[in-house]
Protein backbone atom coordinates (compact mmCIF):
# COMPACT_ATOMS: atom_id res chain seq x y z
CA UNK A 1 0.00 0.00 0.00
CA UNK A 2 1.50 3.29 -1.09
CA UNK A 3 -0.47 5.47 1.23
CA UNK A 4 0.56 9.05 1.48
CA UNK A 5 2.47 11.14 -1.00
CA UNK A 6 5.71 9.99 -2.46
CA UNK A 7 8.17 11.45 -4.85
CA UNK A 8 10.74 9.56 -6.83
CA UNK A 9 13.62 11.00 -8.75
CA UNK A 10 17.12 10.46 -9.96
CA UNK A 11 19.28 12.15 -7.38
CA UNK A 12 21.14 15.01 -9.06
CA UNK A 13 23.14 16.66 -6.29
CA UNK A 14 26.80 16.26 -7.12
CA UNK A 15 29.04 14.70 -4.49
CA UNK A 16 32.79 15.10 -4.73
CA UNK A 17 32.21 16.81 -8.06
CA UNK A 18 30.29 14.03 -9.80
CA UNK A 19 26.62 13.10 -10.08
CA UNK A 20 26.04 9.71 -8.44
CA UNK A 21 22.94 9.08 -10.64
CA UNK A 22 21.16 7.45 -7.71
CA UNK A 23 17.39 6.96 -7.77
CA UNK A 24 15.71 8.19 -4.60
CA UNK A 25 12.10 7.89 -3.47
CA UNK A 26 10.75 9.85 -0.53
CA UNK A 27 7.46 8.58 0.91
CA UNK A 28 5.41 10.75 3.26
CA UNK A 29 2.90 9.07 5.59
CA UNK A 30 -0.75 10.13 5.67
CA UNK A 31 -0.53 10.60 9.42
CA UNK A 32 2.97 11.71 10.41
CA UNK A 33 4.13 10.40 13.78
CA UNK A 34 6.51 13.36 14.03
CA UNK A 35 9.58 11.15 14.15
CA UNK A 36 12.83 11.43 12.14
CA UNK A 37 12.94 9.95 8.63
CA UNK A 38 14.11 6.41 7.96
CA UNK A 39 16.74 5.69 5.30
CA UNK A 40 16.44 2.27 3.67
CA UNK A 41 19.52 0.61 2.15
CA UNK A 42 18.90 -2.56 0.12
CA UNK A 43 21.14 -5.56 -0.47
CA UNK A 44 23.43 -6.67 -3.27
CA UNK A 45 21.62 -7.45 -6.51
CA UNK A 46 18.33 -6.17 -5.08
CA UNK A 47 16.60 -2.77 -5.29
CA UNK A 48 14.36 -0.54 -3.22
CA UNK A 49 11.38 -2.03 -4.99
CA UNK A 50 12.30 -5.65 -4.32
CA UNK A 51 13.85 -5.21 -0.91
CA UNK A 52 11.48 -2.67 0.62
CA UNK A 53 8.38 -2.10 -1.49
CA UNK A 54 7.30 -5.55 -2.68
CA UNK A 55 8.20 -6.99 0.71
CA UNK A 56 5.74 -4.65 2.43
CA UNK A 57 8.28 -2.57 4.36
CA UNK A 58 7.40 0.82 2.92
CA UNK A 59 3.68 0.39 3.53
CA UNK A 60 4.34 -0.90 7.07
CA UNK A 61 6.61 2.07 7.87
CA UNK A 62 4.13 4.54 6.36
CA UNK A 63 1.33 2.97 8.38
CA UNK A 64 3.49 3.56 11.46
CA UNK A 65 3.60 7.25 10.52
CA UNK A 66 7.24 7.23 9.43
CA UNK A 67 8.74 9.23 6.60
CA UNK A 68 10.78 6.94 4.34
CA UNK A 69 13.80 7.63 2.11
CA UNK A 70 14.55 4.72 -0.21
CA UNK A 71 17.55 4.76 -2.50
CA UNK A 72 18.72 2.38 -5.21
CA UNK A 73 22.44 1.60 -4.95
CA UNK A 74 24.62 2.33 -8.02
CA UNK A 75 24.05 -0.20 -10.81
CA UNK A 76 20.82 -1.36 -9.11
CA UNK A 77 17.12 -0.73 -9.71
CA UNK A 78 16.46 2.62 -11.35
CA UNK A 79 19.83 4.15 -10.49
CA UNK A 80 22.44 4.81 -13.12
CA UNK A 81 25.41 2.56 -13.71
CA UNK A 82 28.41 4.91 -13.82
CA UNK A 83 31.50 3.88 -15.75
CA UNK A 84 34.03 4.85 -13.10
CA UNK A 85 34.99 2.40 -10.37
CA UNK A 86 34.99 5.06 -7.64
CA UNK A 87 31.21 5.51 -7.85
CA UNK A 88 30.84 2.00 -6.41
CA UNK A 89 33.25 2.25 -3.47
CA UNK A 90 31.52 1.91 -0.08
CA UNK A 91 33.01 5.20 1.15
CA UNK A 92 31.67 7.06 -1.89
CA UNK A 93 28.26 5.40 -1.49
CA UNK A 94 28.17 6.51 2.18
CA UNK A 95 28.93 10.06 1.12
CA UNK A 96 26.12 9.90 -1.44
CA UNK A 97 23.70 8.53 1.18
CA UNK A 98 24.54 11.40 3.53
CA UNK A 99 23.86 13.95 0.80
CA UNK A 100 20.60 12.22 -0.12
CA UNK A 101 19.46 12.14 3.52
CA UNK A 102 20.16 15.86 3.89
CA UNK A 103 18.45 16.67 0.61
CA UNK A 104 15.42 14.72 1.84
CA UNK A 105 15.26 16.86 4.94
CA UNK A 106 17.20 14.91 7.59
CA UNK A 107 18.94 17.19 10.08
CA UNK A 108 21.53 16.56 12.84
CA UNK A 109 20.26 15.16 16.10
CA UNK A 110 19.12 17.71 18.68
CA UNK A 111 18.42 16.64 22.22
CA UNK A 112 14.70 16.50 22.95
CA UNK A 113 13.65 16.77 19.27
CA UNK A 114 12.27 13.43 18.06
CA UNK A 115 12.05 14.73 14.50
CA UNK A 116 15.78 15.40 14.32
CA UNK A 117 18.34 12.90 13.05
CA UNK A 118 17.89 9.85 10.89
CA UNK A 119 17.11 6.19 11.46
CA UNK A 120 18.67 3.66 9.11
CA UNK A 121 17.58 0.17 8.09
CA UNK A 122 19.91 -1.92 5.96
CA UNK A 123 19.69 -5.44 4.66
CA UNK A 124 22.64 -7.69 3.80
CA UNK A 125 25.12 -5.45 1.93
CA UNK A 126 22.88 -2.60 3.07
CA UNK A 127 23.49 -3.60 6.70
CA UNK A 128 27.24 -3.30 6.16
CA UNK A 129 26.72 0.18 4.73
CA UNK A 130 24.36 1.07 7.60
CA UNK A 131 26.89 -0.11 10.23
CA UNK A 132 29.61 2.02 8.67
CA UNK A 133 27.22 4.93 8.10
CA UNK A 134 26.19 4.86 11.76
CA UNK A 135 29.79 4.62 12.91
CA UNK A 136 30.92 7.54 10.76
CA UNK A 137 27.87 9.81 11.13
CA UNK A 138 27.07 9.89 14.85
CA UNK A 139 25.77 13.47 14.63
CA UNK A 140 22.86 12.45 12.45
CA UNK A 141 22.15 8.73 12.95
CA UNK A 142 19.75 8.01 15.82
CA UNK A 143 19.32 4.23 15.64
CA UNK A 144 20.13 1.50 13.13
CA UNK A 145 18.53 -1.80 12.20
CA UNK A 146 20.71 -4.38 10.47
CA UNK A 147 19.03 -7.27 8.63
CA UNK A 148 20.97 -10.40 7.62
CA UNK A 149 24.22 -8.88 8.93
CA UNK A 150 27.67 -10.46 8.72
CA UNK A 151 31.09 -9.85 10.23
CA UNK A 152 32.74 -10.26 6.83
CA UNK A 153 31.41 -9.13 3.49
CA UNK A 154 30.93 -12.25 1.33
CA UNK A 155 31.45 -10.02 -1.69
CA UNK A 156 35.08 -9.52 -0.59
CA UNK A 157 35.68 -13.22 -1.22
CA UNK A 158 33.96 -13.08 -4.60
CA UNK A 159 36.10 -14.60 -7.39
CA UNK A 160 35.87 -11.79 -9.94
CA UNK A 161 38.18 -13.45 -12.47
CA UNK A 162 36.14 -16.65 -12.45
CA UNK A 163 32.92 -14.63 -12.78
CA UNK A 164 34.23 -12.64 -15.74
CA UNK A 165 35.46 -15.83 -17.41
CA UNK A 166 32.06 -17.43 -16.86
CA UNK A 167 30.30 -14.41 -18.40
CA UNK A 168 32.71 -14.43 -21.36
CA UNK A 169 32.70 -18.11 -22.33
CA UNK A 170 30.64 -20.02 -19.78
CA UNK A 171 33.60 -21.60 -17.94
CA UNK A 172 32.22 -23.12 -14.73
CA UNK A 173 32.90 -21.29 -11.44
CA UNK A 174 34.61 -23.44 -8.82
CA UNK A 175 33.84 -21.24 -5.79
CA UNK A 176 30.35 -22.01 -4.55
CA UNK A 177 29.71 -18.59 -2.97
CA UNK A 178 30.83 -16.79 -6.14
CA UNK A 179 28.63 -19.01 -8.31
CA UNK A 180 25.67 -18.42 -5.99
CA UNK A 181 26.06 -14.63 -5.89
CA UNK A 182 26.44 -14.43 -9.66
CA UNK A 183 23.35 -16.57 -10.18
CA UNK A 184 21.43 -14.26 -7.86
CA UNK A 185 22.69 -11.20 -9.75
CA UNK A 186 21.71 -12.69 -13.09
CA UNK A 187 18.26 -13.74 -11.90
CA UNK A 188 16.92 -10.24 -12.37
CA UNK A 189 17.00 -8.95 -15.93
CA UNK A 190 16.96 -5.38 -14.63
CA UNK A 191 20.39 -5.84 -13.07
CA UNK A 192 23.33 -4.35 -14.87
CA UNK A 193 25.69 -7.26 -14.35
CA UNK A 194 28.83 -5.34 -15.23
CA UNK A 195 27.93 -2.54 -12.82
CA UNK A 196 27.40 -5.17 -10.15
CA UNK A 197 30.85 -6.60 -10.83
CA UNK A 198 32.28 -3.07 -10.55
CA UNK A 199 30.63 -2.85 -7.14
CA UNK A 200 32.24 -6.16 -6.15
CA UNK A 201 35.61 -4.91 -7.31
CA UNK A 202 35.20 -1.66 -5.39
CA UNK A 203 34.21 -3.59 -2.24
CA UNK A 204 37.34 -5.71 -2.57
CA UNK A 205 39.27 -2.43 -2.53
CA UNK A 206 37.52 -1.40 0.73
CA UNK A 207 36.86 -4.65 2.58
CA UNK A 208 34.45 -4.65 5.49
CA UNK A 209 35.99 -4.51 8.94
CA UNK A 210 33.22 -3.85 11.45
CA UNK A 211 35.73 -3.61 14.31
CA UNK A 212 37.49 -0.69 12.64
CA UNK A 213 34.56 1.65 13.20
CA UNK A 214 31.78 0.69 15.57
CA UNK A 215 28.51 2.63 15.77
CA UNK A 216 27.77 4.10 19.17
CA UNK A 217 24.00 4.42 18.77
CA UNK A 218 21.52 1.61 19.63
CA UNK A 219 21.60 -1.26 17.13
CA UNK A 220 19.00 -3.92 16.36
CA UNK A 221 20.40 -6.99 14.60
CA UNK A 222 17.92 -9.29 12.86
CA UNK A 223 18.52 -12.51 10.93
CA UNK A 224 16.70 -15.65 9.90
CA UNK A 225 17.39 -18.77 11.94
CA UNK A 226 18.56 -20.50 8.74
CA UNK A 227 20.59 -17.55 7.39
CA UNK A 228 24.11 -18.94 6.89
CA UNK A 229 25.31 -15.54 5.72
CA UNK A 230 24.41 -14.06 9.10
CA UNK A 231 25.93 -16.76 11.31
CA UNK A 232 28.34 -14.22 12.80
CA UNK A 233 25.58 -11.87 13.96
CA UNK A 234 26.24 -12.49 17.70
CA UNK A 235 29.86 -11.35 17.22
CA UNK A 236 28.63 -8.08 15.70
CA UNK A 237 26.42 -7.65 18.75
CA UNK A 238 29.41 -8.27 21.02
CA UNK A 239 31.44 -5.67 19.12
CA UNK A 240 28.71 -3.10 19.51
CA UNK A 241 28.21 -3.92 23.18
CA UNK A 242 31.95 -3.74 23.85
CA UNK A 243 31.92 -0.24 22.35
CA UNK A 244 29.16 0.72 24.78
CA UNK A 245 26.24 0.57 22.35
CA UNK A 246 22.93 -0.97 23.20
CA UNK A 247 22.70 -4.01 20.89
CA UNK A 248 19.55 -6.12 20.57
CA UNK A 249 19.31 -9.31 18.56
CA UNK A 250 16.30 -10.97 16.97
CA UNK A 251 16.33 -14.40 15.32
CA UNK A 252 13.43 -15.21 12.98
CA UNK A 253 12.44 -18.87 13.26
CA UNK A 254 12.53 -20.84 10.01
CA UNK A 255 13.67 -17.91 7.87
CA UNK A 256 16.77 -17.72 5.65
CA UNK A 257 18.72 -14.88 4.02
CA UNK A 258 16.23 -14.61 1.13
CA UNK A 259 12.91 -14.77 2.93
CA UNK A 260 13.63 -13.09 6.27
CA UNK A 261 12.93 -9.78 4.59
CA UNK A 262 9.13 -10.09 4.44
CA UNK A 263 8.78 -11.26 8.04
CA UNK A 264 6.15 -9.40 10.05
CA UNK A 265 8.14 -10.03 13.24
CA UNK A 266 11.13 -8.29 11.61
CA UNK A 267 9.03 -5.27 10.59
CA UNK A 268 7.27 -4.99 13.93
CA UNK A 269 10.53 -5.26 15.86
CA UNK A 270 12.15 -2.60 13.66
CA UNK A 271 9.19 -0.23 13.98
CA UNK A 272 9.12 -0.66 17.76
CA UNK A 273 12.90 -0.29 18.06
CA UNK A 274 13.03 2.85 15.94
CA UNK A 275 9.93 4.30 17.56
CA UNK A 276 11.39 4.27 21.07
Amino acid at each position, binding site marked *: *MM*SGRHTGEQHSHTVEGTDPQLYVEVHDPEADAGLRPILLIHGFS*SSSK*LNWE*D*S*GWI*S*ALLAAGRRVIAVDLPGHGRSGAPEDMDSYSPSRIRADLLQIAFDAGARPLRAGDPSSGLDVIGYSLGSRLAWEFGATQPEIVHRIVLGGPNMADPLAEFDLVAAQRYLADGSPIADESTAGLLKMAQ*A*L*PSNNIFALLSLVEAIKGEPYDPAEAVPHMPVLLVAGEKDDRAASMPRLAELAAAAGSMAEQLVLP*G*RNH*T*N*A*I*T*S*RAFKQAAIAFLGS
Partner: protein
Amino acid sequence: MAEISFPLPDLGEGLIEATVLEWLVSPGEQVERNQPLVEVETTKSAVELPSPQAGKVVRIYGGPGDKINVGEPLIVFEVPDNTAGIVGTVPKEEAPKRRVRLSAVLDED
Protein backbone atom coordinates in the same frame (compact mmCIF):
# COMPACT_ATOMS: atom_id res chain seq x y z
CA MET B 1 -23.40 -12.64 -0.40
CA ALA B 2 -21.04 -13.66 -3.19
CA GLU B 3 -17.65 -15.35 -3.09
CA ILE B 4 -14.75 -14.00 -5.06
CA SER B 5 -11.64 -16.09 -5.56
CA PHE B 6 -8.27 -14.38 -5.91
CA PRO B 7 -5.63 -16.48 -7.64
CA LEU B 8 -1.89 -16.18 -7.08
CA PRO B 9 -1.06 -13.25 -9.38
CA ASP B 10 1.67 -13.17 -11.98
CA LEU B 11 4.70 -12.11 -9.95
CA GLY B 12 6.68 -11.11 -13.03
CA GLU B 13 10.07 -12.25 -14.25
CA GLY B 14 8.51 -15.40 -15.73
CA LEU B 15 7.92 -16.93 -12.31
CA ILE B 16 5.36 -19.73 -12.32
CA GLU B 17 5.05 -20.57 -8.65
CA ALA B 18 5.61 -19.28 -5.15
CA THR B 19 5.99 -20.81 -1.71
CA VAL B 20 3.82 -19.64 1.15
CA LEU B 21 5.94 -18.26 4.00
CA GLU B 22 3.28 -16.98 6.36
CA TRP B 23 -0.36 -16.00 6.20
CA LEU B 24 -1.08 -12.61 7.72
CA VAL B 25 -4.87 -13.09 7.69
CA SER B 26 -7.10 -15.99 8.63
CA PRO B 27 -10.58 -17.20 7.64
CA GLY B 28 -13.37 -15.17 9.17
CA GLU B 29 -11.26 -12.02 9.27
CA GLN B 30 -12.49 -8.82 7.63
CA VAL B 31 -9.72 -7.31 5.49
CA GLU B 32 -9.37 -3.96 3.80
CA ARG B 33 -8.16 -3.31 0.30
CA ASN B 34 -4.32 -3.27 0.16
CA GLN B 35 -3.99 -4.88 3.58
CA PRO B 36 -1.08 -7.39 3.50
CA LEU B 37 -2.50 -10.90 3.03
CA VAL B 38 0.40 -13.29 2.85
CA GLU B 39 4.16 -13.50 2.50
CA VAL B 40 5.32 -15.68 -0.37
CA GLU B 41 8.75 -16.56 -1.65
CA THR B 42 9.73 -17.13 -5.26
CA THR B 43 13.04 -18.34 -6.61
CA LYS B 44 14.04 -14.70 -6.82
CA SER B 45 12.67 -12.88 -3.82
CA ALA B 46 10.18 -12.79 -0.99
CA VAL B 47 7.14 -10.55 -1.37
CA GLU B 48 4.13 -9.51 0.66
CA LEU B 49 0.90 -9.63 -1.34
CA PRO B 50 -1.62 -6.86 -0.64
CA SER B 51 -5.34 -7.58 -0.78
CA PRO B 52 -6.94 -6.65 -4.12
CA GLN B 53 -10.17 -5.76 -2.32
CA ALA B 54 -12.06 -5.49 0.90
CA GLY B 55 -14.05 -8.45 2.13
CA LYS B 56 -14.33 -11.26 4.63
CA VAL B 57 -11.81 -14.07 4.22
CA VAL B 58 -13.63 -17.34 3.56
CA ARG B 59 -10.75 -19.65 2.70
CA ILE B 60 -6.99 -19.50 2.30
CA TYR B 61 -4.96 -21.98 0.29
CA GLY B 62 -1.63 -23.44 1.32
CA GLY B 63 0.22 -23.39 4.62
CA PRO B 64 3.82 -22.35 5.25
CA GLY B 65 6.11 -24.25 2.87
CA ASP B 66 3.37 -25.13 0.36
CA LYS B 67 3.89 -24.25 -3.28
CA ILE B 68 1.15 -22.50 -5.24
CA ASN B 69 1.20 -22.08 -9.02
CA VAL B 70 0.48 -18.71 -10.59
CA GLY B 71 -3.23 -18.65 -11.43
CA GLU B 72 -4.21 -21.19 -8.78
CA PRO B 73 -6.54 -20.09 -5.99
CA LEU B 74 -4.83 -18.25 -3.15
CA ILE B 75 -7.71 -16.82 -1.16
CA VAL B 76 -11.48 -16.58 -1.34
CA PHE B 77 -13.37 -13.53 -0.11
CA GLU B 78 -17.00 -13.13 0.74
CA VAL B 79 -18.37 -9.83 -0.47
CA PRO B 80 -21.87 -8.36 -0.49
CA ASP B 81 -23.72 -9.14 -3.72
CA ASN B 82 -23.81 -5.50 -4.62
CA THR B 83 -20.05 -5.28 -4.92
CA ALA B 84 -19.78 -8.31 -7.18
CA GLY B 85 -19.53 -6.14 -10.28
CA ILE B 86 -16.48 -4.11 -11.20
CA VAL B 87 -18.08 -1.15 -12.95
CA GLY B 88 -21.16 0.63 -11.66
CA THR B 89 -23.42 -0.26 -8.76
CA VAL B 90 -26.18 -2.76 -8.26
CA PRO B 91 -29.60 -1.13 -8.62
CA LYS B 92 -31.71 -1.21 -5.47
CA GLU B 93 -34.92 -3.20 -5.62
CA GLU B 94 -37.53 -0.77 -4.36
CA ALA B 95 -41.27 -0.89 -4.17
CA PRO B 96 -42.62 0.96 -7.21
CA LYS B 97 -43.46 4.60 -6.53
CA ARG B 98 -45.86 6.64 -8.61
CA ARG B 99 -47.14 10.18 -8.94
CA VAL B 100 -49.32 9.63 -12.00
CA ARG B 101 -52.86 8.27 -11.68
CA LEU B 102 -54.76 6.84 -14.63
CA SER B 103 -58.30 7.86 -15.41
CA ALA B 104 -60.38 6.59 -18.27
CA VAL B 105 -63.91 5.74 -19.21
CA LEU B 106 -63.50 2.41 -20.86
CA ASP B 107 -66.27 1.75 -23.34
CA GLU B 108 -66.30 -1.94 -23.96
CA ASP B 109 -67.28 -1.65 -27.61
